[in-house]
């Protein structure tokens, strides 16, 4: 057999998942993505592993490793399609809209001038987000036209090419909180409210956490958002609007260290059960060869 558990820097989450894998006697190999060498034009069809669960911190590494492994028939958690869709906010918005999942009004623009027109249409405040990024980094609330002009120019001049892909979004007064719902195998298993006096409620930015009941509309929207990006092991962020819940983003490598205690749910255990359960019904795990 072998399930590859791929990591980079080890977070608390990966340690908990490794403990759960070991507790279940799962045969797996931990793989450091810094050492990966994946043959894109392989001479033989043998893949190094039958399955892979990628928990790397880096979106780029995760995406390309998953693409390369899937091309050789390796079952990946999450899939390359899901990783690509979740890791890029434009693709996430498109997937949510295509599935008619409620989300926020958003425009993508490619010049500061067009981005300013989008901001003027939404009115102030509005929000600029990087298309790739996490933990609330480089998310900017634009309170005035002058602020918008300054931020758009800065991103265009000082940023990488991706910062000139302007993802401009309406601002929602979210009552100081938003919800994170963990959806595993299509089912919303746990949720938290993230509360902060700051308009960014991400726990990486210091937001506090309390239990969120995952029934009714919350479960419905979270599960629909997870399905829209392709399903798997996901963390869906929801915001309350005057029109009901809206999906903000879907994370393919969600962090849950702060969500276990307030929810009382064994989130890493549920994730591991999903992976092992999927594999027991899927491809036969076979001995790995020392191919990296």
């Amino acid at each position, binding site marked *: 057999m072998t399930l590859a558990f791929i990591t980079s820097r080890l977070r608390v989450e990966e*340690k908990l998942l*490794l403990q759960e894998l070991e507790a279940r006697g799962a045969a797996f190999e931990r793989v450091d993505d810094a050492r990966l060498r994946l043959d894109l034009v392989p001479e033989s069809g043998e893949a190094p592993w039958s399955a892979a669960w990628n928990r790397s*911190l880096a*979106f780029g590494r995760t995406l390309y490793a998953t693409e390369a492994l899937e091309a050789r028939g390796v079952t990946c958690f999450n899939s390359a399609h899901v990783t690509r869709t979740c890791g890029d906010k434009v693709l996430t918005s498109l997937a949510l809209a295509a599935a008619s999942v409620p989300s926020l009004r958003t425009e993508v623009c490619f010049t500061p001038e067009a981005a300013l027109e989008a901001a003027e249409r939404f009115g102030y405040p509005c929000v600029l987000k990087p298309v*790739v*990024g*996490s*933990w609330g*980094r480089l998310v900017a609330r634009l309170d005035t036209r002058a602020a918008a002009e300054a931020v758009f120019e800065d991103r265009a001049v000082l940023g990488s090419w991706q910062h000139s892909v302007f993802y401009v979004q309406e601002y929602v007064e979210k009552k100081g909180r938003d919800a994170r719902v963990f959806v595993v195998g299509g089912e919303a298993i746990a949720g938290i409210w993230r509360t902060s006096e700051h308009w960014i409620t991400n726990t990486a930015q210091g937001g506090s956490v309390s239990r969120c009941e995952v029934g009714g509309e919350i479960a419905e929207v979270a599960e629909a958002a997870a399905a829209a990006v392709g399903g798997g092991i996901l963390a869906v962020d929801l915001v309350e609007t005057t029109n009901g819940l809206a999906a903000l983003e879907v994370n*393919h490598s969600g962090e849950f260290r702060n969500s276990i205690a307030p929810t009382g749910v064994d989130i890493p255990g549920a994730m591991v059960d999903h992976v092992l359960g999927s594999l027991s019904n899927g491809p036969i795990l076979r001995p790995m060869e020392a191919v990296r």
Partner: protein
Amino acid sequence: MTTLKAQTASCPLCEAAVPVPADVMQGEVLACDDCGAELEVQTIDPLALAEAPEVAEDWGE
């Protein structure tokens, strides 16, 4: 959750003794109390620490 055993590693920046948890794993990040550096565990046997890389733009969830 973690317990400390009588094991330390040398900080590669300031050479202070960095306490290492008994259940430490390769890839984990430890902090040096003396200089404040974030240190990544490179190998367990032998125990080796290196300055952890800066957070990259595509890191996250």
